[in-house]
C-alpha cells in the first residue's frame, strides 16, 4: 500500500530497485478487424536480481510481454511497474537485447557499446572519455577487448551478440530484457554464452527476464520459469528451479526439471 502510494509520486524506494510487478496485464492485437487476445490477466512479481525465464509455444505472447516491459508496446489493461515506477514508454533503467544483435554497422565495436551512454543529454550527459572507459570495461566483461576497433560486419554471430549484451550492460540497467538472445547461435557457442551470461548476471546483480525456446537453457539460467500457455483459457504457470549454481547440465536433478518443463507442454 505504501509502496504503491510512493511510486504514484514517481519516487522509487531503494528497496524496490530492480523489482518488477505485473498485475492483471492484458493485451490483444487487432488483426483483420478481429481482436486476438495475446496476454490475459497475467500476474507475476519478479524479485530484484532474480532471473525469470519465459517459455511458451510460438505465438504465446513472449515477445509481446517483453516489449511491454521495455515500453515498446502498451498494455490494454493492467499495471506494470519496474523498480516501483509505472512503465510508460522506454526508460533508461530497462535495457532490451533482441534476437538479432542490432549493432550499428557504421560504428566500431567500442562505439556500439558506448551508444546508450552517448545518447544521454542534459544533466545525465556522460563525458566522452567516461563513456569510452565504461564501454571498454563492459567490452572486457564479454571478452572482446581486442575487437574494440573492429566493425560489426567483421564479427561472428556470437561475437556480435556479445557486443549487444555489453551495450545493454554499459547503461547499467536495473533490468535486462532478453528475447531469444542466443536463438541464432550454434549449440556450442550457445552454451558458452549461457555460462557467460550467468557470470555477468551474477556480477552485475541485475534482474533478468529472458525468453527462450530452449528448455535446457531455461533450466540452466532461471531462478523461476514462467510457462505461457498457447490456449488463452489456461493460466500461465510458474516453476521454481531449485538448483545450486553453477549448474550441472548432466545432473539427474537438472534432467528432472527439463522433463517437468516438457510435461508443461504435454510433450512427455
Amino acid at each position, binding site marked *: 500500500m505504501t509502496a504503491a502510494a510512493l511510486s504514484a509520486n514517481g519516487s522509487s524506494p531503494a528497496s524496490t530497485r530492480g523489482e518488477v510487478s505485473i498485475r492483471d496485464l492484458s493485451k490483444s492485437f487487432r488483426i483483420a478487424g478481429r481482436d486476438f487476445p495475446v496476454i490475459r490477466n497475467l500476474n507475476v512479481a519478479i524479485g530484484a536480481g532474480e532471473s525469470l525465464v519465459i517459455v511458451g509455444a510460438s505465438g504465446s505472447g513472449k515477445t509481446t510481454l517483453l516489449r511491454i516491459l*521495455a515500453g*515498446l508496446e502498451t498494455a490494454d489493461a493492467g499495471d506494470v511497474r519496474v523498480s516501483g515506477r509505472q512503465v510508460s514508454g*522506454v*526508460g*533508461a533503467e*530497462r*535495457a*532490451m537485447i*533482441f534476437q*538479432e544483435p*542490432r549493432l*550499428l*554497422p*557504421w*560504428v*566500431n565495436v567500442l562505439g556500439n557499446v558506448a*551508444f*546508450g551512454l552517448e*545518447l*544521454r*543529454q542534459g544533466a545525465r550527459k556522460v563525458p566522452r572519455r567516461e563513456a569510452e572507459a565504461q564501454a571498454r570495461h563492459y567490452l572486457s566483461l564479454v571478452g572482446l577487448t581486442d575487437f574494440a576497433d*573492429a*566493425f*560489426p*560486419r*567483421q564479427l561472428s554471430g556470437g561475437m556480435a551478440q556479445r557486443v549487444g549484451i555489453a*551495450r545493454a550492460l554499459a*547503461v547499467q540497467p536495473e533490468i535486462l530484457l532478453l528475447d531469444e538472445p542466443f536463438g541464432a547461435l550454434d549449440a556450442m557457442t550457445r552454451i558458452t554464452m549461457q555460462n557467460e551470461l550467468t557470470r555477468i548476471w551474477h556480477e552485475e546483480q541485475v534482474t533478468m527476464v529472458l525468453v527462450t525456446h530452449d528448455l535446457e537453457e531455461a533450466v540452466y539460467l532461471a531462478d523461476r520459469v514462467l510457462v505461457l500457455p498457447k490456449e488463452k483459457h489456461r493460466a500461465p504457470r510458474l516453476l521454481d528451479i531449485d538448483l545450486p549454481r553453477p549448474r550441472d547440465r548432466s545432473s539427474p536433478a537438472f534432467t528432472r526439471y527439463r522433463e517437468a518443463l516438457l510435461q508443461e507442454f504435454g510433450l512427455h
Partner: protein
Amino acid sequence: MSVQDVNSTVVALNGEEETGGQKPLQSLLEGAGRFLSRYGLLIGFLLLWHVASIQRWVNPSVFPPLDDIAAAFWRGMTQGSLLADLGISLQRSGIAFVAAVAVAVPLGLFMGQIRAVERALDPILQLFRQTSALALYPVFILLLGLGELSKVFVIFWATIFPLLLSTIGGVKEVDPKLVEMARVYGASRLQVFRRVVLPGALPSIFVGLRLSATMALLMLIASEMIGANQGLGFQVMNAQFNFQIPLMFSAIFLLAALGLAANYTIVLLQRRLCRWSNAPV
C-alpha cells in the same frame, strides 16, 4: 634497409635468381600486371586510334592522330578559348550541382521520414522526373531568357531528381529494427536521425550523387549545344562546324575528363565517409 632494397632490385633486374632478389622483381611484375589489367585496354584503344589514323585505315580528318589532338589541345588552352570554355562549363554545372545537392538531400531526408509528405509529393515527383528536362528547356528559356540562368536551371532540374529519389529510398530502407534499438536506449527524434537514419541512408545518397553528377554533365553539354556561345559543349559543336576536328576532340576529351574527375571525387568522399562498409572482413 633501403640500401639493401635498392641493391636487391638491381640484382633482380639483372636477372639473378637469388631469393633476396626475387621479391622486388615479383612485386614489380605484379604491379605492372595490375596496371596493365586495369589500363591495358584503354592504352590499346588509344594506340589503335593513333596507328589507324596514321596508316589511314580510317579517315584522319575525322579521326586525327593523337599528337594533332594534343597540339590542338595545347593551343586551345594557351591561345584559344578552351580554358575559358572549361571555366564557364565548370561554373554552370558546378552551381547547378551544388544547388541540386543543397535542395535534394535535405528534402529527401525529410520526405523519406514522413510518410504523408512522401505520399503526397510522390505522384508529382514521378511526373516531373518522367518529363525530360530537355523537353522543358524551351520553357525555361521562355521564362528565364537565353542567358546563364536558363542553362543552370535546366541542369539543376535534371540533376535534382536522381538525388532526391535516391535519398528518399535510402531513408526508407533504413532498418526499422535499428531505429527501435535506438529508441530503447532513449534516443530522441533528432538523435535517431543523426545516429541511425543519416548514416544508414548515406550509401544511397552517394549512389544518387554519382547519378546526378553524370546527369549534370549530360545536361551541361546538351544545353551548351542548343543555345550558347561559350562552354565545352558549344566548343564541340563549333569546332565541328568549322571543321577543326582536333579541337573538337580536345573539347570532347576535356568533357570526359570532367566526368571522370567528378566521379572520382565522389568515390573518394564515399570511401572516407562510409569506411565501415569496406572494412576488410
